């Protein structure tokens, strides 16, 4: 896995700061790539608007990343070290047959890292074409969790941000 940067995707929401990951040398971060891919798609345009509104308005501005809005798939992340309150899952917009999935790692109720996603066209993640996005999310999450455990990244709860061990906001992993 390449080196990637952990960068703020949104810190304007009232309850939650959203981070994303950007591979070294990439033009766009994973989350922007996901949203941009379906932004003008005739079939998925409305879905992408709903999902974004769910992330920024419902979670970001109204509720934070609470259990009730966060679907966890801990069983599927067997490779991840067990680490208390950290959960890799998807921000699952609760609506029947919603076709899109966006993966995320919840650090706290106020700090969430968004990865990429795609169309869920199979019964499970493994059977779906977005399986490789799930694997990517697991790999990003694994390195982030490890960095939190060894102190390379620290959580500043007061400011609702993540910092590098040296206090810098530039986080390269």
């Amino acid at each position, binding site marked *: 896995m390449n080196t990637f940067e952990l960068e*703020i*995707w*949104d*810190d*304007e929401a009232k309850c939650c700061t959203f981070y*994303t990951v950007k591979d070294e040398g990439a033009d*766009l*971060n994973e*989350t*922007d790539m996901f*949203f*941009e891919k379906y*932004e003008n798609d005739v079939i998925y345009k*409305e879905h*992408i*608007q*709903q999902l*974004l*509104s*769910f992330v*920024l*308005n*419902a*979670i970001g501005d*109204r*509720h934070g990343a*609470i*259990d*009730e*809005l966060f*679907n966890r798939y801990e069983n599927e992340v067997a490779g991840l070290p067990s680490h208390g309150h950290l959960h890799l899952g998807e921000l*699952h*917009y*609760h*609506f*029947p*047959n*919603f076709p899109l999935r966006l993966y995320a790692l919840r650090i706290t109720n106020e700090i969430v890292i968004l990865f990429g996603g795609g169309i869920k066209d199979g019964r499970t993640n493994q059977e779906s074409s977005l399986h490789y996005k799930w694997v990517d999310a697991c790999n990003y999450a694994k390195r982030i969790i490890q960095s939190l455990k060894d102190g390379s990244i620290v959580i500043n709860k007061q400011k609702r941000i993540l910092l590098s061990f040296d206090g810098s906001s530039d986080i390269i992993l």
Partner: protein
Amino acid sequence: MRSKVARRILAETPEETKIFVNLYADILVRIKQLLKENGHTQKSFAEKLDKRPSEINKWLTGNHNLTLKSIAKMQAELGEPIIHVPRRVAFSEKESIKRQFTVYKNHQFDPTVKFEEGQKTLRIPKTFQPLAHAGE
């Protein structure tokens, strides 16, 4: 800062979409929190409602559209409102001026109740008034 892509999509998102998503999330959160407060699991709640656990799971994980009927059924069992619709009350100040207020009704409360939070004791301030929003 906010992602430029997110800002662009959000600017194009119709207001009704934002309202719909927020309402849907609020209702789901409310139901799940009431279930937790009442000590219900999906299985025990399904038994109370005389439904299959898989059906309740569909309601709560988004695989089935919530209807007013299903919300009413849950509200009756949980004993607390899930959705509250404010009422408009009209009155005449003078014969020529008619005003309307939107009233959000609160339950009666006991102002002597104390809430313990760690070492702090929180009291309901004496000046506390039930929530009411007034508008013309």
